[in-house]
């Protein structure tokens, strides 16, 4: 590892010297080239490919909010109230507020809905850090406030080319009652309202109890048996590529 870092650093410094030399040739000689006051430093980087596969039957996943950050901070925890950004993500599918409220080494927001059976991948470059965790969240759009993902998942121990994967649990943001009515579910099964600032549920995050659906006796539900789910909504695979 150390040898490699030194090699990379040397390569980077060589490149910089080369660029400086080129720049010097273009100067009109009346202005002396300023001496650099500091040694140029190359920031060591790590790169990861994060692949997501939707493993549900009929729950499209909203664009994911993806953060690589220093270990030890959780974007949600069981029994605690959801942050404002997580509430928006879990009720409307939009990851922007969720990503913006976290401090991270690198952050990415997806742009496309991931339909069942499909995969998507993201490449993330991260400046070297003593610890590195992945946090990822995505709404199950045919629900009131269900989301899936991982929080503070350690990826620092991945060696080059190594992968790790997890089949993610499904959480309930606890910010909107699971009425399952057409007016309250934004996904294609209903086309109803997304985010609503009112918190009319238990107001803490926990594991999702599942959807009941109209086929199982909840006549006011916009959902059918096809929208039911069990834990394992998304398969997350992280590979260190650099």
């Amino acid at each position, binding site marked *: 590892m150390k040898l490699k870092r030194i090699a990379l650093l040397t390569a980077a410094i060589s490149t910089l010297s080369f660029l400086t030399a080129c720049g010097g040739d273009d100067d009109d000689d009346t202005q002396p080239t300023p001496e650099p006051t500091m040694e140029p430093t190359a920031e060591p980087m790590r790169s990861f490919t994060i692949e997501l596969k939707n493993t549900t039957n009929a729950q499209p996943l909203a664009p994911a909010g993806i953060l690589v950050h220093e270990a030890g901070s959780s974007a949600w925890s*069981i*029994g*605690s109230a959801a942050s404002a950004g997580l509430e928006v993500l879990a009720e409307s599918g939009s990851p922007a507020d969720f990503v913006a409220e976290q401090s991270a080494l690198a952050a990415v927001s997806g742009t496309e809905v991931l339909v069942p059976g499909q995969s998507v991948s993201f490449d993330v470059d991260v400046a070297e850090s003593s610890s590195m965790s992945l946090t990822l969240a995505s709404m199950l759009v045919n629900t009131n406030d269900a989301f899936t993902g991982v929080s503070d998942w350690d990826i620092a121990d991945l060696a080059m080319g190594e992968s790790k994967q997890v089949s993610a*649990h*499904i959480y*309930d943001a*606890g910010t909107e*009652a*699971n*009425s*399952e009515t057409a007016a309250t579910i934004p996904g294609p099964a209903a086309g109803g309202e997304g985010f609503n600032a009112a918190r009319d549920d*238990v107001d*803490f*995050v*926990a*594991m*999702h*109890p*599942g959807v*009941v659906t109209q086929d*199982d*006796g*909840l*006549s*006011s539900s916009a959902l059918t048996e096809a929208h039911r789910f*069990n*834990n394992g909504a998304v398969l997350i695979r992280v590979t260190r590529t650099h």
Partner: protein
Amino acid sequence: MKIKHILITSLLGLCASGAAAETISVKITNLTQGLYFTPLLVAAHSESAHLFEVGSEASEQLQAMAEGGDISGLATLASSVGAVSSENPAGGLLTPGASTMVMDWDTGSNDRLSIVAMLLPTNDGFVGLDSWTIPSEAGTYTIMLNGYDAGTEANNELVVEGSGAPGMLGIPANPGGNSGSDGTGVTTEEGNSTVHIHRGTLGDAMESGGTSDLNSSIHRWLNPVAKVVITVQ
């Protein structure tokens, strides 16, 4: 830490047949949004002991725990086979989303961990861990627990005061207070009389009447129902 390892190694050298004593901490989190855990029994025991086993009929003591939340029988049983137990670490119900800790717990020579507590509101559902091997290596270990059905009572889903007594049909209490009443009963049968993974609650959407007194939008769950973090010191 290193000194401790060396000490343990020396002890093992002196007494090769004895298992090393361990001090552990156990954190238990109720992962559900609508279920309560009755007083927990956390027991460290030998390889040959079990509080429950999937596919085996529940003991009388397990039945008392699963139907009424009474852990005293299981605790006595555990102690009679040399187990050390922490009874009721949460000091009552472990509410939805809440956690409890058993701190700096000397498990002696017992290297297996078991945990049980009744799930409310259910007829005879319980959260369980059956004889998990406590690692000898220091570190933090996370495990997820499922909801089990003791197989001792039909899941009629009717809240009936006093039905916590073994053999008396009904759910003894719903601490959340968000259940209905006057249901007709979901079923009168329990096809599998051995301990098995709980199929979950049905519930219905009716405050009064219907088949179940439980609410299908609140009282269902998907496994896992609990997270356990064990720290071996």
